[in-house]
């Protein structure tokens, strides 16, 4: 469950109390499911892209349910831009490290045994870097389009 104060629960921003209660229950499950799909990407269907989009959907649910203040405390817009670029840099540097052992993007870490979580070389690390990039990219573009846009829709204005 998301840890929130009583005043945020009772405030008028965001949506009705039903949506707020369900969001508090479901947020942890969404983040856990997204992390599971990212980490087990080399053993079951999924991978970095699908898991990253699921995590971004979790953050967007938090924003829609509680208003922009709560979710901006968890990841504000500067942090989203930084994490975005950090993800790509980690991915490229893993590839460049492969040149120390042979050619570009060589799978140089020890491969491990079959069917274990820490197997198959650089593939889990690359999955984590891609998930980081996709999550923060899509969350930042959602912020830019809907909250920091330049015109407010009539729905949002009437709720005040």
């Amino acid at each position, binding site marked *: 469950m998301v840890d929130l104060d009583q005043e945020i629960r009772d405030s008028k921003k965001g949506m009705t109390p039903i949506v707020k209660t369900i969001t508090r229950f479901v947020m942890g499950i969404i983040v856990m499911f997204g992390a599971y799909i990212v980490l087990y990407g080399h053993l079951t269907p999924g991978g970095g892209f699908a898991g990253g*989009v699921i995590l971004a959907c979790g953050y967007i649910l938090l924003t829609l349910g509680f208003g922009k203040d709560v979710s901006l405390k968890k990841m504000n817009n500067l942090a989203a831009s930084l994490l975005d670029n950090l993800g790509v840099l980690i991915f490229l540097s893993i590839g460049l490290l492969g040149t120390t052992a042979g050619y570009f993007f060589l799978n140089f870490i020890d491969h491990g045994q079959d*069917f274990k979580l820490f197997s198959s070389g650089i593939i889990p690390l690359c999955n984590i870097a891609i998930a980081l990039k996709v999550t923060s990219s899509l969350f930042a573009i959602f912020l830019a389009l809907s909250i920091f846009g330049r015109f407010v829709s009539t729905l949002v204005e009437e709720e005040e």
Partner: protein
Amino acid sequence: MILYFLTLVLFVMGLYCLVAKKNIIKKIIGIVITEYSINLFLILIGYRKGGVAPIILKGMDAGVVAESSVDPLPQALVLTSIVIGLGVLALMVAICLRLYEKYKTFDMSDINKLQG
């Protein structure tokens, strides 16, 4: 054969919506439908009759998967294509909102006419 043809009909419908409608949002919807049809076409080409998914689970034999699985290469490329489609859609909607702010309308013929 008829499946490929119907997929191309979906592609042509998306292109028609892009070319012959006046509203910018309809043009964006046309691009989205075109992208769907192309992804479907690529996966349809790689299907094998009676095939299994290209994943090896714990009790399975690796030889069975290697013999009779569907083509995994188009699946890898379509996976990146779907996420790229989302990014390009975000860029298109950003341009569309900027146009609305400047010209106060979504109508393409009005935007074409305003020459200062």
